[in-house]
């Protein structure tokens, strides 16, 4: 039994417009995505903005109801749970948000924000609550005095730590991290990543790490999935993906990462144009509008199927058949 198993998950949003809510098409944010995560590993999801990675994260947490597909968490299908069961199961699965500022209620002190899950699930109050929140603050490296502050009195990095403390309050088994560092300063980013790594070791957590930043993914994750227009186009172990990318999109992404050296390689692959709209997804391979390695009409007409390159390396490309 896998720890987390996502099977053919799709999420479509109906585009509504006007007074009588006529449907103006659907945004296909996530299109039959499947992957598995082992307990204790860090699974990365990488892609441009608009690739559906955030929607995927939210759907797994069931903050959004999926259109179709199954999500097995410890063998339980999350899509079939009633709200009360789901509420209880969410203890095991928590989320860290991208913008640490908007993730905290500006009218609540930190102790109220961090303690909210404890109040809801364990009905803690008074001294017990204070003690537990204080312990959590210590885990994330904040002081006791921060407990009684308002969010606007803390820095971005501190707020992100508060968000982590809240997520840890119920001893979850898995954290979904939605671009946890992209709103932070570079120096704080490194600090936060190291802290997340240490935390994972200490508490035996499983991470689902969503990011557009390949360097961050490489640093934190064990396995990576590359998303494009709602599909996973390539999935591999992190070193294999970075050393031997197979999908043209992955290659373009990797070559766009700036290297810490004066002479940058000349062979950058530049993607032309923007990611197509998820309302009108191109026929055939969804990447063919920007692909520089098209092999013929098959790319524009036939949708590629997943090809297993090695046991842990899948790719969605006609080129690799």
């Amino acid at each position, binding site marked *: 039994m896998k720890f987390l198993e996502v099977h053919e998950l799709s999420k479509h949003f109906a585009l509504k417009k006007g007074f009588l809510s006529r449907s103006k098409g659907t945004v296909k944010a996530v299109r039959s995505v499947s992957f598995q995560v082992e307990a204790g590993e860090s699974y990365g999801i990488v892609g441009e903005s608009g690739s559906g990675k955030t929607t995927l994260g939210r759907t797994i947490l069931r903050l959004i109801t999926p259109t179709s597909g199954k999500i097995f968490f410890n063998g339980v299908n999350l899509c079939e749970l009633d709200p009360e069961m789901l509420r209880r199961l*969410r203890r095991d699965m928590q989320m860290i948000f991208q913008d640490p500022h908007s993730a905290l209620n500006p009218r609540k002190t930190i102790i109220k924000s961090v303690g909210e899950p404890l109040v809801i699930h364990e009905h803690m109050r008074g001294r017990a609550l204070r003690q537990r929140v204080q312990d959590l603050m210590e885990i994330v490296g904040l002081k006791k005095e921060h407990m009684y502050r308002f969010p606007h009195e803390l820095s971005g990095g501190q707020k992100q730590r508060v968000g982590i403390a*809240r997520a840890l309050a119920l001893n979850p088994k898995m954290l979904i991290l939605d671009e946890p560092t992209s709103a932070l300063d570079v120096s704080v980013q490194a600090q936060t990543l190291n802290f997340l790594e240490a935390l994972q070791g200490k508490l035996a957590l499983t991470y689902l790490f969503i990011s557009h930043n390949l360097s961050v993914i490489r640093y934190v994750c064990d396995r990576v999935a590359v998303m494009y227009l709602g599909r996973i186009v390539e999935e591999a172990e992190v070193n294999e993906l970075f050393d031997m990318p197979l999908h043209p999109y992955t290659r373009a992404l990797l070559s766009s990462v700036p290297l810490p050296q004066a002479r940058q390689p000349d062979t950058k692959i530049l993607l032309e144009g923007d990611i197509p709209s998820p309302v009108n997804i191109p026929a055939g391979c969804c990447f063919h509008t920007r692909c520089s390695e098209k092999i013929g009409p098959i790319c524009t007409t036939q949708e590629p199927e997943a090809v297993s390159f090695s046991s842990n390396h899948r790719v969605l490309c006609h080129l690799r058949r």
Partner: protein
Amino acid sequence: MKQKSIPMYAEHANTSGFWTQWKEEHESFFRDVRLSFYLFSRSPLSLIGMVLVGAFFLIALIGPWIVPYPEDATGAVHMSQKLTAPGSQFWFGTDEMGRDVFTRVILGTRVSLKIGLIIICAAMGIGVPLGITAGYVGGWVNETIMRITDIFLAIPGLILALAIIGALGPGITNSMIALSLVWWPGYVRLVQGKTLSLKEESFIEAALSVGAGRARIIFLHILPNCTSPIIVKASMDMGMSILAAAGLGFIGVGAQPPAPEWGAMISIARNYLPNWWWYALFPGLAIFVTVLGFNLLGDGFRDILDPQSRGYYRE
């Protein structure tokens, strides 16, 4: 600061511990309050508004005990002293029945305060729950509530109020009912918009993901974040509703003479302009000062209650 406590005083030590704890917990809150006071005191216009509104409340409270001729509030008639010019005996002069205008203006304060408070409370009581429901539930509930609100907003408020009074009959109670019924749509709009924008904030999602229910999210996350704009709007509307009620009194469908209501007073006094100017001037001045005070206060509240502007002042 840890002290060895003698068992006998253990309880005392415990209570002092409670106070230190309480102080520590609320330190940030008091810091915010102090900052608000500081910001408020830096703006002279808000202070003027505060003083005017403070005076208004004070006069409304103690009015009946400070007026020189309490019996003039109702139908007393002293024809011998009618339309006396302002002087040491009658500070604001007298009216066509010889009643003291000063007494009547002072007592009119209480009437206006009552009208304003009731209209605003009723409007909030209708508007805020509807606004939150519309914004949070969304879908057809939102459409229904907002379209009805739009219909009310499309009709000029005073005209609609007149129509309602036409059906209910003139009088101060009916004019309050009528104004309450036309005043709520503004609150629905305000609260619905605020709720919609709050719903997109990640702290709502965070609350959902830690298992918060609908009631918890509405009452602990959305409503507290709506209070600032509601307070600002209420303090501004207070002045406007007093003005509207005075308007109804002026055209004769609100408070009926001889009730000491400012609008009703001016309505009669306008026949005596310009020779007996004091009769209309002083009630008019009272309306003007009150509305100005509430508007200035509302502006001041807006400047300090908006947490987004905090950072600006901090830096």
